[in-house]
């Protein structure tokens, strides 16, 4: 991959052994004047990006001010969610605009999914080597 940056998988829980490695990506999120450095899990099976409630609050977003309500599925079907648009920076790549399904739950991980993280970045997984590479879309 041209112009790519490489990251390592993270061992999330030793109890899970070999299954416990996850592709967490360090990412800077900005909303208004606030910026937060967080780790998002790359999830190519997720249709949308998902933001835990506490991260949105830490960014200064106000739940009642967000008007676009979303309906999620799977484990998140019972969780209320709204659209939150934020600026995101990965490594030294130019900043992009990401749309998140901001959930009213803190038990969900921050997920980077098809809409719209994978529209903005190309990702190549080398799971057997516990690494992955990212580059901006061409």
């Amino acid at each position: 991959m041209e112009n790519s940056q490489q990251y390592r998988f993270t061992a999330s829980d030793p109890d899970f052994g070999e299954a416990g490695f996850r592709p967490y990506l360090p990412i800077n999120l900005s909303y208004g004047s606030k910026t937060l450095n967080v780790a998002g899990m790359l999830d190519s099976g997720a249709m949308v990006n998902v933001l835990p409630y506490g991260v949105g609050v830490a960014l200064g977003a106000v739940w009642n001010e967000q008007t676009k309500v979303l309906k999620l599925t799977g484990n998140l079907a019972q969780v209320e969610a709204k659209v939150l648009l934020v600026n995101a920076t990965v490594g030294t790549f130019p900043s992009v605009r990401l749309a998140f399904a901001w959930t009213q739950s803190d038990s969900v991980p921050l997920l980077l999914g098809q809409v719209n993280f994978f529209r903005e970045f190309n990702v190549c997984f080398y799971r057997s080597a516990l690494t992955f590479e990212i580059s901006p879309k061409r």
Partner: protein
Amino acid sequence: MSTAIVDLIPRLHDLKRSEKLFVIQILASDLAQEEENLIRPNLAYPIWSPFDSSEAATAMLNALAEEKETGYGE
């Protein structure tokens, strides 16, 4: 290849046929055990992915498009 393996190979070659078969059996058993342990019983493996949230995906894409049209952005 690690130095441990480089040291080991000549010694394995020197083994008797029955001993070589015994080593093969032990290693095959180790590999099978590791495969079985990849997904362990009695552990919860949560899957959070919103797989079929097409409505949400459409709404989020619309929000991005609306913002682009109005020229608003941080």
